[in-house]
């Protein structure tokens, strides 16, 4: 029993080292270092807000448009950065993995946690923007803080688990098919546009889109987060008649993703070892 806990703590240590390395590498040697994780989403938001506010700015259901964009992007970013970095993570470590018995799932897991850390920094950026927009200047306030923002801890585990599943799946698949890197890039772009990051579902005024949106897992995470920012709480149950984020859907998608990804990785483990 104590042997097991010792091994577990060793794995946790390795995981921590890997996450640290990832974060360090992300902004290695850049002038202001980790500050980029805060600045990056901010600058992105400014560009997007500038470009799209005339088009979609008035249909955000009471949420300030810059915050609308920023909130969507940073939640989506957890999934985007963890899955795209997980693609090549096993192949990139192949020298090590050919010779050492190490639980390979630790590498995609580390990527997901790194993305979560990055999210933490971006969340600071969001709070800064929100604080700024809550000030009574330039005709404001445009944003009102609600205590419900802390309920993001309901959403984060779900989107983390969802990203984990995809990351497991992709890291394993990439060992066999190296060209999925390009395919996944396209899928990710498509997914970005299919999720209401800079537009809102209502603004499109399309019955079909509204109906189909509930099948997009990312919609629930992104829009659920925005509900909290608005001071509402996402409903528990999933409804197909109205386009509403639901907590059940969040965890449902997460569970399905994790189970499928995990099973795939487990089933392929020996083949991965042979193919690396």
């Amino acid at each position: 029993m104590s042997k097991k806990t010792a091994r577990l703590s060793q794995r946790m240590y390795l995981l921590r080292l890997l996450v640290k390395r990832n974060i360090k590498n992300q902004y290695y040697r850049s002038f202001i270092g980790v500050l980029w994780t805060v600045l990056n989403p901010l600058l992105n938001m400014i560009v997007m807000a500038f470009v799209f506010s005339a088009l979609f700015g008035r249909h955000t259901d009471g949420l300030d448009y810059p915050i609308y964009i920023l909130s969507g992007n940073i939640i989506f970013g957890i999934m985007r950065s963890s899955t795209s970095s997980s693609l090549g993570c096993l192949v990139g470590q192949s020298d090590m993995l050919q010779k050492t018995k190490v639980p390979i799932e630790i590498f995609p897991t580390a990527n997901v946690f790194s993305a979560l850390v990055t999210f933490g920094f971006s969340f600071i950026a969001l709070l800064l923007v929100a604080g700024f927009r809550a000030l009574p200047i330039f005709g404001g306030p445009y944003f009102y803080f609600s205590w419900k923002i802390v309920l993001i801890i309901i959403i984060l585990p779900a989107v983390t688990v969802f990203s984990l599943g995809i990351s497991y799946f992709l890291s394993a698949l990439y060992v066999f098919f190296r060209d999925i890197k390009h395919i996944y890039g396209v899928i990710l772009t498509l997914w970005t546009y299919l999720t209401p990051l800079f537009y809102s579902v209502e603004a499109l005024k399309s019955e079909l889109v509204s109906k189909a949106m509930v099948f997009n897992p990312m919609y629930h995470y992104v829009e659920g987060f925005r509900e909290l920012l608005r001071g509402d709480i996402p409903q528990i149950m999933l409804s197909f008649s109205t386009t509403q984020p639901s907590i059940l859907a969040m965890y449902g998608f997460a569970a399905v993703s994790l189970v499928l990804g995990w099973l795939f990785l487990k089933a392929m483990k020996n083949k991965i070892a042979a193919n690396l």
Partner: protein
Amino acid sequence: MEDNRQDVVLEVRDVTMKFNKYETGVNSLKELVVRAFKKNLKKRKFECLKGVSFDVHRGEAVALIGRNGAGKSTLLKIVSGILKPTSGYAKRYGRITPLLRLGAGFDGNATGLENIYLNAAILGYTKKEIDAKIPEIVEFSELGDFIYSPIKTYSSGMLARLGFSIAVSMDSEILLIDEILAVGDIAFNKKCHAKLAELQQKGLTFLIVSHGEAVKRYCKRAIWIDGGLVREDGDITTVFKHYTEAMTKKTAAPATAPAAPAAQPQAKPAAPAAADANKK
């Protein structure tokens, strides 16, 4: 070889490994789809190892020889527990540390010290164990203050030193060496060989994959893998003699280029570490 059973650190029994291999390596989705349409996606059952058995005892140094594609690498993966054999088993009584090829598993942006931690943690060591070994590793590598510089500023010799120092300093029972060492300059090379000899004295077990006769320095025993079988297992001089004879005689051997024998005679310590990959 059935004497003193508790001395066995590595037990390989009837290991058989079968692969479902596509006739030509398919490693992209595009290729898979195109071939599926053209209907030349032939799968072939490929038996890489056919009932390999051997024991390795504590303190023994064993050379694993055989021509490219004989199944050595697969066998090593099974021995290290990465790959599960189709049938049979490989049991390890103790930890295995692999000596990786140059700079493998290192992160270029991280410092030498950070890489020691990362590398050793991947090898399965806890923070405490690594902390205790740091002075020894740093000292042995002779890197001095370079240990605080990013790895990518290192020369290849320095990289090799670091890798070697990590591998020999961690307390493991079995050291896995792929091709005999070519580490750093002559002075460091000497030091490495001295260290290996010292470790051997201490009872560390070596498993060395090699094509060169240089392994004779450590190994008294050699296992010759040929066509997925143990062709010969015994005294290294005899096995090497038969191996060399077979390699030079058999010019029309299947799956071997006619010029293949040239690959093995004088692979002195200066040979590149990744010699397994070269197809002469």
